[in-house]
């Protein structure tokens, strides 16, 4: 087993990994950029080394610096967490060369699953279901018509040069094909100067369902069931749960076996996730492999009882999996909410600043993976995830209620967060029914404003502000009798802000 692990990450995931190492009796090295000197992961690690300026390219993505730090501290392995260098094949290769263990897949597998074209070819040969589509670009409409027949309606027309929805058309039957094709080509021409289009199977009411896989270095590959991550905003997952409401045990077994096969064919080892799209008729299609520990890994841990970070470390150290597929069992229901520093009332813009007060929820079945504390400044340089709130209960209904209660009890003052939005989301009747698809947020929360102006709460806020002024340390603030000061000549200069420079 390793003696010392360098954790090449920050925030909640660095904290999570450092704690796992400490539980296993392994020493830890945290790395930090200048702006993260006071971050939580730095405080809890056994050693902490500064690796450069705040921009990630100069610190958390700086391979030389991180390898050098591992050498200097005598770390025998590096855990990359998620993001940053986690899926960087060049970094994995570099570690291999330097004889430092990269806690993740081998560099060949990492390179293969990261290459969309090559992995698609490999997996098609192994009969893994992939979203049917045209391989080449054809400009001749009769050839496209034949292809549509082969793929099966509904099909989606996509611009070859495109993106952003330009030139995209959904076609439900053959009658609609010609006019849609003409319109799509016209739109593609005017948007990209290139009229070529191609076809892909249109996935109706898709759900995002992924399978967690563990593969040791001795050829054992098992899956730890699914996570449903359909609730996404701007392609970013925000709520994840397991089990998925869309799967029965037969489909679960088939998808799980497919996920195992994907990893076997790719020569994959360590922890990884196979992502699928599931359509309304329960057809599933391979999307991609996430070659890392994922943000949403805790829901799998709570329902299977297996600590994925411990497993990652054991696998990387060369140990064999101590359990087989038949030992795997899903118990109860788990939901995760990602807590972001962002302002749901202001187009979800990131919110930075000082966390003035922070109180985390507690209780049976409540887990909180957290990278923050009261008094900490949220920096502007990185992903705005602050923490993850995860609940477990014997069934989905109780898990939903438990999550709502935990979100109600969650206090963060100073920066804006998504907590209130998440509470309304989990409380939505369609979420309750399990009707979760990737268009859930555009369908139900496009115009969400929250209870922005509940009169009663506004009065309460003013009441406590006045109370605070009467009794608090800065008593007298806001008092009308003190207004003489406020009408000073300074103010006639223009808009005046408190605390401004």
């Amino acid at each position, binding site marked *: 087993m390793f003696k010392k692990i360098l954790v090449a990450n920050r925030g909640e995931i660095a904290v999570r990994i450092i704690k796992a190492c400490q539980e296993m009796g392994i020493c830890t090295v945290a790395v930090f950029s200048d702006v993260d000197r006071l971050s939580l992961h730095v405080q809890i690690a056994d050693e902490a080394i500064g690796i450069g300026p705040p921009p990630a390219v100069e610190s958390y993505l700086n391979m030389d610096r991180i390898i050098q730090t591992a050498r200097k501290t005598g770390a025998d392995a590096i855990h990359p967490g998620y993001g940053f260098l986690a899926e960087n094949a060049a970094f994995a290769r570099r570690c291999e060369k330097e004889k430092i263990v990269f806690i993740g897949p081998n560099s060949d597998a990492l390179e293969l699953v990261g290459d969309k074209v090559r992995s698609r070819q490999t997996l098609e040969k192994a009969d893994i279901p992939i979203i049917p589509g045209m391989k080449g670009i054809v400009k001749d409409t009769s050839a496209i018509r034949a292809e549509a027949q082969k793929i099966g309606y509904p099909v989606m027309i996509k611009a070859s040069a495109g993106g952003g929805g330009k030139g995209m058309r959904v076609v439900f039957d053959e009658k609609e094909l010609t006019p849609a094709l003409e319109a799509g080509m016209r739109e593609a021409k005017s948007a990209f100067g290139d009229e070529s289009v191609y076809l892909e199977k249109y996935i109706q009411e898709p759900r995002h369902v992924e399978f967690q896989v563990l593969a040791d270095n001795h050829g054992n590959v098992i899956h730890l069931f699914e996570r449903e991550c359909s609730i996404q905003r701007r392609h970013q997952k925000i709520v994840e749960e397991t089990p998925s409401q869309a799967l029965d045990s037969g489909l679960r077994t088939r998808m799980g076996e497919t996920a195992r096969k994907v990893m076997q064919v790719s020569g994959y080892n360590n922890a990884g996730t196979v992502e699928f799209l599931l359509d309304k008729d329960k057809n599933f299609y391979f999307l991609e492999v996430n070659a890392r520990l994922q943000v949403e890994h805790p829901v799998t841990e709570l329902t299977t009882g297996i600590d994925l970070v411990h497993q990652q470390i054991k696998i990387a150290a060369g140990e064999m999996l101590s359990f087989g597929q038949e030992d795997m069992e899903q118990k109860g229901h788990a939901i995760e909410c990602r807590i972001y*520093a962002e302002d749901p009332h202001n187009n979800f*813009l*990131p*919110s*930075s*600043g*000082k966390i*003035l*007060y922070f*109180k985390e929820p507690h209780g049976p079945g409540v887990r909180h993976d957290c990278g923050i504390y009261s008094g900490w400044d949220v920096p*502007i*340089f*990185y*992903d*705005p995830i602050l923490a993850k709130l995860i609940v477990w209960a014997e069934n989905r209904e109780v898990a939903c209620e438990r999550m709502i209660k935990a*979100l*109600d009890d*969650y*206090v963060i*003052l*100073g920066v804006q967060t998504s*907590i*209130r939005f998440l*509470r309304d989301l989990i409380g939505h009747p369609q979420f309750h029914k399990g009707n979760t698809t990737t268009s859930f947020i555009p369908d139900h929360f496009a115009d969400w404003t*929250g*209870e922005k102006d*509940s009169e009663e*709460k*506004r*009065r*309460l*806020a*003013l*009441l*406590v*502000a*006045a*109370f*605070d*002024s*009467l*009794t608090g340390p*800065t008593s007298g*603030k*806001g*008092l*009308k*009798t003190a*207004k003489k000061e*406020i009408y000073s000549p300074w*103010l*006639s*200069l*223009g*808009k*005046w*802000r*408190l*605390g*401004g420079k």
Partner: protein
Amino acid sequence: MEFEFLLNEVLQKISLEKKEGFYIFSDGEKTYEADIQQISPHQISVLIDDVSFRIYTARDKDCRYFLIDGQQFVIKEPTEQVEGFREGEEKTSEGTLLVKAPMPGKVIKICVSVKDEVRKNQTLAIVEAMKMENEIKASVDSMIKEIHVKAGDLVDSETPLIELEPL
């Protein structure tokens, strides 16, 4: 006693009087008799008509934050308001508009040049914060008078970015 506060940038006038251990609150429309107890520096308990409210509070300079039933309120001391301008803009003494950074971040791109005429909602600059790009747009049709920053600059919230002369 009379108080004036800014809640969501709107001026609110209220009164609060202490009377026999209770507080009498009024905003002209409603009057409450409340029992208010400070439990800790960050927690206040309020009882109104036998209903209990748990309120969390924190302070940063002259801003006070209150969390009531999951909703955060930011209350400031009153200041003189200039109507008709967007948050993050400031009217200068010459009648031009100073567009400021909405949050600390890095200037990715300046999309205009001095003397350009821009339409309302046209993008002036892109500022990146926390891996997200934010477009800074013109609030009115105007001419670009001056550009105070360049691509790559790190800016604080309130840093002047661009000066506009409304047309």
